[in-house]
């Protein structure tokens, strides 16, 4: 939509430069506080117009990265630049003006809308705040926005509790779009929704991205959702980036053992693959006391002595980056190619039995077609 001065395809819209966020917790008069390294040196660059996904397990710092990018949290160290301007250098008023250009869609649609405001107030508030147009224009824009996300004008006077999760998430999206931002960060925008609604909201986000020329950053823990909407994927583990790759090549050939484990965790809707899945064992270590060296070495099936001693840097790996000492030497990855398992004789036998059963069941029901394979 509005392309600001200095925006071009070449300049990244958002850059994170060695950003760290350490939370202090506990600690009293005679106690040392625990330092939780939620984000520990993340460097990222987001190109204008792309959809970037940040994935990882709960507690890996991915949501914190999203909040740091909007300066909803103050970084402990490092810089965040939006269209080349350092957010840390802005004063309160400058930051507030900047917030028009970058918006957030939250995870929990039940918590992210003020229960005491009507939908029109929620969606129209950014317009009112930034003084965009007269009251009448603001009202019209609000109704337009509601229509854009698929809500009716008569929804405007209702309160959030009168809506379903999917509808509320649409309200949240309409609010995020109200002041015509150029960058929208979705913090697990669909993970709280029913699966059937997830697809709707994902499609809506994709449509809006096209329509308004947005740059999207989607934080998620679910690689299956990401696959359909992102151009590039950043994989995080315990506050660090372990792999950055274009979506297609990441899914085709995950380089980092952790990425492999994440892909292996996607359930494959085909019989007979159960035994071949290799899932990660153990919990994610505490970010208050991260393991030495490579943070993944405690759970990595390929860990060697060097992994616990030396921290791997994010290395270039042909159009992508990976932080692993041994990614070149790892055995071929079986997990990623599980999506379509080979037909086995056992499967063919079971399918034949199933079809025979269905035919018996359907006998008499005119025109009933036997189920298709897969």
């Amino acid at each position: 939509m509005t392309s600001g001065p200095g925006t071009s395809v070449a300049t990244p819209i958002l850059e994170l430069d060695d950003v760290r966020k350490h939370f202090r917790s506990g600690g009293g008069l005679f106690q040392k506080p625990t330092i939780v390294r939620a984000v520990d040196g993340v460097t990222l660059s987001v190109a204008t117009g792309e959809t970037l996904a940040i994935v990882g397990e709960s507690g890996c710092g991915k949501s914190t990265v999203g909040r740091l990018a909007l300066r909803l949290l103050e970084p402990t160290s490092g810089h965040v630049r939006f269209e080349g301007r350092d957010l840390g250098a802005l004063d309160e008023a400058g930051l507030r003006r900047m917030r028009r250009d970058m918006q957030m869609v939250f995870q929990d649609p039940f918590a992210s809308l003020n229960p005491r405001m009507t939908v029109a107030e929620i969606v129209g508030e950014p317009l009112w705040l930034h003084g965009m147009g007269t009251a009448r224009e603001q009202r019209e824009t609000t109704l337009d926005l509601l229509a854009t996300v698929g809500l009716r004008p008569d929804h405007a006077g209702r309160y959030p509790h009168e809506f379903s999760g999917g509808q509320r998430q649409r309200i949240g999206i309409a609010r995020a779009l109200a002041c015509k931002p150029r960058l929208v960060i979705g913090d697990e925008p669909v993970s709280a929704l029913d699966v059937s609604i997830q697809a709707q909201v994902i499609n809506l986000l994709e449509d809006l991205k096209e329509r308004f020329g947005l740059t999207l950053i989607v934080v998620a823990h679910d690689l299956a959702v990401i696959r359909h909407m992102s151009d590039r994927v950043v994989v995080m583990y315990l506050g660090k980036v372990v792999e950055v790759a274009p979506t297609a090549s990441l899914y085709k050939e995950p380089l980092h053992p952790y990425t492999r484990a994440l892909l292996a965790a996607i359930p494959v809707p085909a019989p007979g693959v159960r035994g071949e899945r290799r899932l990660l064992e153990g919990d994610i270590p505490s970010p208050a006391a991260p393991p030495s060296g490579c943070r993944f070495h405690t759970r990595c099936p390929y860990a060697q002595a060097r992994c616990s001693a030396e921290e791997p840097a994010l290395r270039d790996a042909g159009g992508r980056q990976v932080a692993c000492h041994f990614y070149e030497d790892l055995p071929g990855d079986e997990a990623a190619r599980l999506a379509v398992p080979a037909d086995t004789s056992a499967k063919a036998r079971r399918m034949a039995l199933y079809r025979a059963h269905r035919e018996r069941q359907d006998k008499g029901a005119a025109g009933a077609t036997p189920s298709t394979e897969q």
Partner: protein
Amino acid sequence: MTLALDTASPAAAAPRSRFWGKLLRNRTAAFGGGLVVLFALAAILGPWVLPWDPVQTSWSAVRKAPSAAHWFGTDELGRDVLARVLSGARASLLAGVVSVSIAIAIGGPLGIAAGYFGGWTDSIISRCTEALLACPFLILAIALGSVLGASLVNAMIAIGIAAAPLFIRLTRGQTLAVKTEDFVEGARAVGLPHRWIIIRYILPNIFAPILVQATLIVAQAIIAEASLSFLGLGQQPPAPSWGAMLNTGKNFVQQGQWWMSVFPGVAIFFTVLGFNLLGDGLRDALDPRES
């Protein structure tokens, strides 16, 4: 917000009428509210309706038992106890409502500031609050009352200050809880300044528990005012107050002249009961999880 006014008004009425429906359907709450209304009416209308002047003494009618002429009897100076109970309702209700208003006016902003801004603001306010809470509410009110001097207004101020820490703690806790909600972070993400976040996001969402707490504290404040008056620190004679009436009445209980203390005691009991039941009902009616 001007933007939504035209559509919002009919829809805004819906949750409100649901609230009233819920409150009135709750029989105990309706009973409590009825008691409060009854005493408020008595406080306002009583002096006009009754033929007796609450401060008019009569040497011919000293310590008379309840009779057709004096339904609640007369006290040691021959004043009509019914008239004194009714006009004492004014002092009690005023003391309850005004002192709680003072407490909210002090405690609300401090609690919100402590909860919202955190850090040093919170530390200072919270430590002071804890220091005040270390003293029992009534002891604190009595101490403040005796420092300020004996009068009804001073008693109300003393009770208000003594009750303020209760509201600081409540609003701080509620603010902390609301502050972590996503929608407050969302308000920051949109770029709302702190004052708007407090007015539009924090206040409406902490209002219900504060209102409930207020009705419950009104009951305590009424008892506190009665206690202060009982000790001679509140309402000054000859103006009537339930506490002061209890104080003098207690001297005659052993002589079987029970009416001087029982009637103001019953009045305190029912007013406090009314506010407590109303508070419980409000809590239930304002809780969206209860249907």
